[in-house]
């Protein structure tokens, strides 16, 4: 073990509603929660933990706009300026026939860009070994990790607070 080892208290919750109430009560008592790991999305948990809304929709919008502009410039430049061709006597540049490709590229860039951003900000990639506090957190337990170093309260106090607020067991975990 290196000196940089971090000590955590890990509270296990059996039920999502108990967890939600627990998170609010535990934060009120002044315990700083490192993170909560759940097997499925628990609605309201992000608010209970005080997380700000994700800005990924903004990223999606910006990538989408890039797609729109890229598609329109590409089509107008290719068919209007670089090599205009007479096709059925139609105008070289007219908007309606360019709409389908513009729409598709908007959606494509928006989706790929947003998902890419999501992977980057969440630090997700193949061959990343995640730090796991309890393997049951992907099965049926909700796992709350409390970093002892960043809390002023003692280990016993935190352990008591977790148990009083619905944790079915409290373990220690060092990394």
């Amino acid at each position, binding site marked *: 073990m290196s000196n940089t080892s971090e000590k955590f208290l890990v509270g296990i919750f059996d*039920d*999502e*509603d*108990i967890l939600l*109430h627990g998170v609010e009560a535990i934060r009120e008592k002044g315990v700083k929660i490192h*993170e*909560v*790991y*759940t*097997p*499925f*999305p628990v609605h309201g*948990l*992000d608010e209970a*933990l005080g*997380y700000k*809304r*994700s800005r*990924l*929709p903004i990223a*999606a919008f910006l990538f*989408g706009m890039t797609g729109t502009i890229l598609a329109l410039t*590409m089509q107008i430049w*290719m*068919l209007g300026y*670089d*090599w205009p*061709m007479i*096709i059925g006597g139609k105008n070289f540049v007219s908007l309606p*026939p360019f709409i*389908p*490709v513009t*729409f*598709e*590229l908007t*959606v*494509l860039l928006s*989706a*790929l860009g*947003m*998902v890419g951003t*999501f992977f980057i*900000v*969440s*630090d*997700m990639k*193949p*061959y*990343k*070994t*995640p*730090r*796991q506090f309890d*393997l*049951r*957190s*992907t*099965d*049926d337990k909700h796992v709350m990790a409390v970093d002892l170093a960043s809390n002023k309260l003692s280990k016993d106090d935190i352990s008591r607070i977790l148990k009083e607020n*619905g944790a079915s067991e409290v373990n220690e975990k060092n990394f």
Partner: protein
Amino acid sequence: MQATSSIRETLITGGKTVRDVSEDISRQVEGKPSRLWWMAFSISLILLLFGVYCLVTVLWEGIGVWGLNKTVGWAWDITNFVWWVGIGHAGTLISAILLLFRQKWRMSINRAAEAMTIFAVICAATFPLVHMGRLWLGLYWVLPLPNTWGSLWANFNSPLLWDVFAITTYFTVSLVFWYIGLIPDFAVIRDRAVRMGNKTRASVYNALSFGWDGAAKTWMRYESVALILAGLSTPLVLSVHTIVSFDFATSIVPGWHTTIFPPYFVAGAIFSGFAMVLTLLIVTRKVFKLEDYITIYHIELMNIIIIITGSIVGIAYITEFFVAWYGQVPAEYYAFYNRATGPYWWAYWSMMTCNVISPQLFWFKKLRTNIVATFILSIIVNIGMWFERFVIIVTSIHRDYLPSSWSMFYPTMYDVGEYVLTFGFFFTAFFLFAKFFPVINMAEVKSIIKSSSEKKH
């Protein structure tokens, strides 16, 4: 302290707990495949190999080995293309549109339906690609790449080119949507493998899960991504078959030159997509013992969608006929008269029986909650939908303005062989998916266990 939600319909039966969900769904990934699986897989593989032989012949000899002639230049290939694209509509519709409408019953079926979508779109793409003849030059014909042959850029006025963009975008976005959904479930299998001491499986599924840890913050972002992907996919699903219908509707061929094509094609696509989802899921739930997750109630709801979309398609057929008569354009009038009474009358009436009459049987609750009836009808619907595309394509072009060039279309072994190829690929891929990937979205199902699971008393 425990808050319970108000009364909701039961979506998951058998008194399942959150734990049971991981157990029941991961079991088929962890265990050895059954003999039934091996049998089904081998048959699909044989079909695939026969198809590959036919495909190689077509590529080697050219598409002259197909039964096409000077009058009928589009037949089985484009019929099969449109048929498969249509089938590929249900998955993303279920996961995107039903997510936006907050329909919780989607959660048991979306994973398999999306997988089906992806495989169906691959099958569909085979046909226009091969139809180009010289596949290896196709890249330059369909993508805006600088080249030295003839016209410098692809023609953005052509619906065929819009189709290329629509289908590649649809495929990519559906694949991403499907994979995003799979990530937390791969982590479930990884953690179970760690606990079972299976190191190889743990590292494979960890790579697949992108190191997922289920942190509340990641879940928050994840939900945001899923919602926006659903919002993007909803118009995307509708755009794909709309653009496919433009391939026909923007032409001036009598029988194709119809303004109701886009909504009519989209309804037909959802109709056939749901039929294929039913065919596959009725088998899957039986083979993997998932009756508690995919219940009769799920099947009934899908059957209701089949009645709705089937009726829309029926009305579209009748409207086309009405307009052909009311419009009094002789060529249009003849195209439709010839459809119903000409040499392809049998294809037309097969289509009418399978698509318009048969789904109406689902008005009877007894039939739409009966598994055998649903299974048979789901296959009949897809036969009907194949005939719909055949009727639209072949009967509209086999008799053109010049009676001396009227002709019939007769498929060769290679036309049939490529259709067999796609079936082989589709089922091989689906069986591999069902073996190695969790067939039901565990994370989503777990989130509704408390509100929608049947309680043990």
